C-alpha cells in the first residue's frame, strides 16, 4: 500500500513537471536556435567584412607595385581601410547579442499584447544599437556589405514596437 501511494505521488509529480516544464523547454530550444541562427548571420557578415578588406588592400598593393610605390605609401593609404575594417569587426563582435536582445523583446511584446507600450523604451534603445552597426556596414572607406533579410525584418518589427515609421 505504501508503495502504491509512492507511485501515485510520483506520477502526480511527473505530470506536474511535464505540464510546467515542457513550454519552458520549448522556449529554451527556440531561444537556442535563435542564438545559433544569429551567430551564423554575424559570422557571415564578419567573413564578408574580411573579404572586402582583402580585396581593397590587394588592389592597393597591386596598384602601388605597378606604380613602383613604397611601403610607406601603402601604410599611409591603408590606414583608413584598417580603421573601417576594425570598426566593423568590433561592431560585429557584439552584433549577435544585439540581434538576440531584439528577438527576445519582440517575443515579449507579442506575448504582452495590449500592454506592449511598456516595451517602447527598450525597443528604441535596441533599435539605436542595431542602426549603429548597420551604418558601419554601409560603404565608406570599404564597400558596403549587404544587410541580411533577418536583420531587416527584426529592424522593422522593432520600429513598429517603438512607434517610429518603418523604412
Amino acid at each position, binding site marked *: 500500500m505504501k508503495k502504491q501511494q509512492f507511485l501515485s505521488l510520483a506520477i502526480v509529480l511527473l505530470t506536474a513537471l511535464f505540464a510546467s516544464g515542457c513550454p519552458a523547454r520549448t522556449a529554451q530550444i527556440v531561444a537556442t536556435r535563435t542564438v545559433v541562427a544569429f551567430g551564423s548571420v554575424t559570422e557571415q557578415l564578419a567573413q564578408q567584412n574580411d573579404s572586402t578588406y582583402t580585396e581593397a*588592400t590587394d588592389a592597393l598593393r597591386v596598384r602601388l607595385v605597378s606604380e613602383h610605390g*613604397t*611601403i610607406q605609401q601603402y601604410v599611409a593609404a*591603408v590606414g583608413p581601410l584598417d580603421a573601417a*575594417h*576594425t570598426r566593423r*569587426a568590433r561592431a560585429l*563582435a557584439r552584433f549577435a547579442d544585439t540581434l538576440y536582445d531584439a528577438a527576445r523583446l519582440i517575443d515579449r511584446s507579442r506575448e504582452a499584447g495590449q500592454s506592449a507600450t511598456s516595451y517602447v523604451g527598450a525597443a528604441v534603445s535596441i533599435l539605436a544599437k542595431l542602426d549603429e552597426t548597420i551604418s558601419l556596414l554601409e560603404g565608406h572607406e570599404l564597400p558596403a556589405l549587404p544587410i541580411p533579410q533577418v536583420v531587416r525584418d527584426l529592424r522593422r518589427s522593432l520600429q513598429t514596437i517603438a512607434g517610429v515609421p518603418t523604412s
Partner: protein
Amino acid sequence: MNPVELISSILRIGGLVSEAVMDAMKAGDVSAVEELTKHLPEGARIEARSAALQMAQLAKATEALKPASGG
C-alpha cells in the same frame, strides 16, 4: 562546478588565448594566430581574426614593395 565558476573559467581561458594570439601576432606567426583564434568566444574570434588579416596583408605589401637591392 556551478554556472558562475564555469563562465568565469571560460572567460579566463578566453583571456589566456587572447594573450597568446597577441604574442603570436607580434611574432608574425599567422598560422598560430589562425589556430588560436578557433578557441576564442565568437566575438573575440571575429576581432582577433580581422587583426590577424590586417597583419597578413601588411606582410604581403612589405614583401611586394621591398626596394630593389643593389644598383
